[in-house]
């Protein structure tokens, strides 16, 4: 990991020692206690085999809070709870307003420095402007380098992709990807996936939007490309819809206590899926979301039942 400096077990021991000694954490710093949660389910990134927790953290809308100090502190609490639960991947973009500096602010508040998998994007129609934008994003995050950079919504991907691949070859970046959302430009996504050495592809996938099951997810498996699912709750609309109904009895079979966990387990249990990135500004919700990466996962038969159940609502 780009920002990891200590092996995780050693960091845990040091953290526990520090807590046991009653270390005087400075004001304004969120002390990260030893993780109390059960181990998160992980999946390997196909191009390297590196294990990644199946639930990450998105920042669209929720982290765009401008200079509101109280709201920034709230985001820092969310990030702290995310790492406390064992999370790693945080995803942002220069398109998300102030989200990048708020992520940087939140990361600076969590001590010790968390093991973040920093995923960001390049989003400009100008190829030559790409590197400067990436550098600006890196400064906002205050990380040594990004783990993953993606071409946002395929914008000028022909110009950006060679630059990202060159950065990876030079060791300035670990993984390269492309993104789309809400079913847009899937044919072009497939084309890029076939012709270029991608590590990641990010698409919309949830209980309602399942178009990617037809071609993109099988292609990702075939090509050894990790898949990130965005909009797992359709910006909350899916949960608002589902929460009008009782939780089905089969939810208990996969250790779900709420609809958010059902929705996330459906996504991350797809064999081609690597990670879902729900966004939230609530500590309670981030804990709920992270719990979806624990316990039993649905098998293929139950996944079909879940989709059919939601279709029938």
């Amino acid at each position, binding site marked *: 990991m780009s920002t990891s400096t200590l092996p995780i077990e050693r960091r845990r021991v040091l953290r526990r020692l520090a807590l046991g000694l009653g270390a005087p954490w400075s004001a304004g710093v969120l002390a990260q206690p030893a993780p109390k949660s059960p181990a998160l389910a992980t999946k390997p990134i196909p191009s390297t085999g590196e294990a990644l927790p199946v639930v990450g953290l998105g920042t*669209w*809308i*929720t982290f*765009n*809070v*401008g*200079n*509101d100090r*109280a*709201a920034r502190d709230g985001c820092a609490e969310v990030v702290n709870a995310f790492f406390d639960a064992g999370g790693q991947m945080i995803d942002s973009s220069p*398109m*998300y*307003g*102030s989200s990048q500096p708020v992520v940087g602010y939140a990361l600076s508040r969590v001590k010790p420095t968390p093991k973040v998998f920093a995923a960001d994007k390049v989003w400009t129609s100008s190829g030559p402007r790409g590197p400067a934008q990436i550098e600006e994003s890196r400064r906002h995050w205050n990380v040594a380098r990004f783990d993953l950079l993606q071409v946002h919504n395929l914008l000028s991907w022909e110009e950006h992709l060679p630059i990202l691949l060159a950065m990876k070859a030079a060791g300035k970046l670990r993984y390269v990807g492309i993104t789309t959302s*809400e*079913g*847009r*430009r899937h044919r072009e996504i497939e084309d890029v996936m076939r012709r270029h050495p991608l590590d990641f592809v990010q698409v919309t996938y949830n209980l309602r939007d399942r178009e990617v099951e037809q071609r993109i997810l099988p292609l990702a498996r075939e090509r050894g490309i990790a898949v990130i699912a965005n909009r797992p709750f359709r*910006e909350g609309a899916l949960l608002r819809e589902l929460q009008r109904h009782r939780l089905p009895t089969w939810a208990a079979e996969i250790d779900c206590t709420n609809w958010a966990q059902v929705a996330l387990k459906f996504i991350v249990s797809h064999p081609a899926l690597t990670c879902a990135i729900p966004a939230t*500004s609530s500590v309670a919700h981030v804990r709920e979301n992270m719990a979806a990466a624990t316990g039993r996962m649905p098998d293929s038969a139950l996944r079909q039942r879940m989709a059919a159940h939601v279709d029938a609502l």
Partner: protein
Amino acid sequence: MTEWWTYRLSDFLMFSARTYRRLFELYNTEVWPLPLVAFIVGVAALAIVWHRPRVPDIAVPVGPVMLAAAWLWIAWAFQLQRYATILTAAPWFAAAFAFEALILLAAAWIGAQTGAVSLSDGRRVCGLGLFAFAVLAYPWIGVLLGRPLSQAEVFGIAPDPTAIGTLGVLLLMPSGESGGRRLAGAMAWLIPLAWCAVSGATLCTMDAPEALLLPALAVIALVVAIRTRATRPAA
């Protein structure tokens, strides 16, 4: 943008309703006591216009000059300094607001050349009504909807009531009789009307109960402006 037809209004909303409301709360706190001063100045201006059936010649250019100052302030202090922190398009809005300030200065010049105008009852009532609504009622809408007064949007420093109030003032202004002056007068309407549409769409996407208020008032102002004319009084 490819596949533009697949985008919805909500795809362009980059922030939550809570963040948007907090923006006004922090703005009011940071520029305090300006919200109070703006409210008092607005009430004083309304009282002057309300009690005079015929606007004095000297007041004709003063109104748009004060409005121009308000639009310029909002361009800088709100759009550029604050809204731009959560909305990528806000610098463009700032440019539009600054441009409106220039047009209002042109309108002030036209007013100074033209002098006072006679208004039909309908135009005067609508103009005064919109101005009064923007100054007196708009700050309380949020309170009525359960939001704190600290998030109030005040005429002269917040964009929505200023746009509505400006439409009201424009109804009370001469539009110019020659082609160039008439064009300048008409142009002063464009940005307030466009802002009512943009802000209405933003509020609508946030499911704000007052979302349709701004566009509805803008349509009323436009219809009244088209159906009535401000003319010079008979000598």
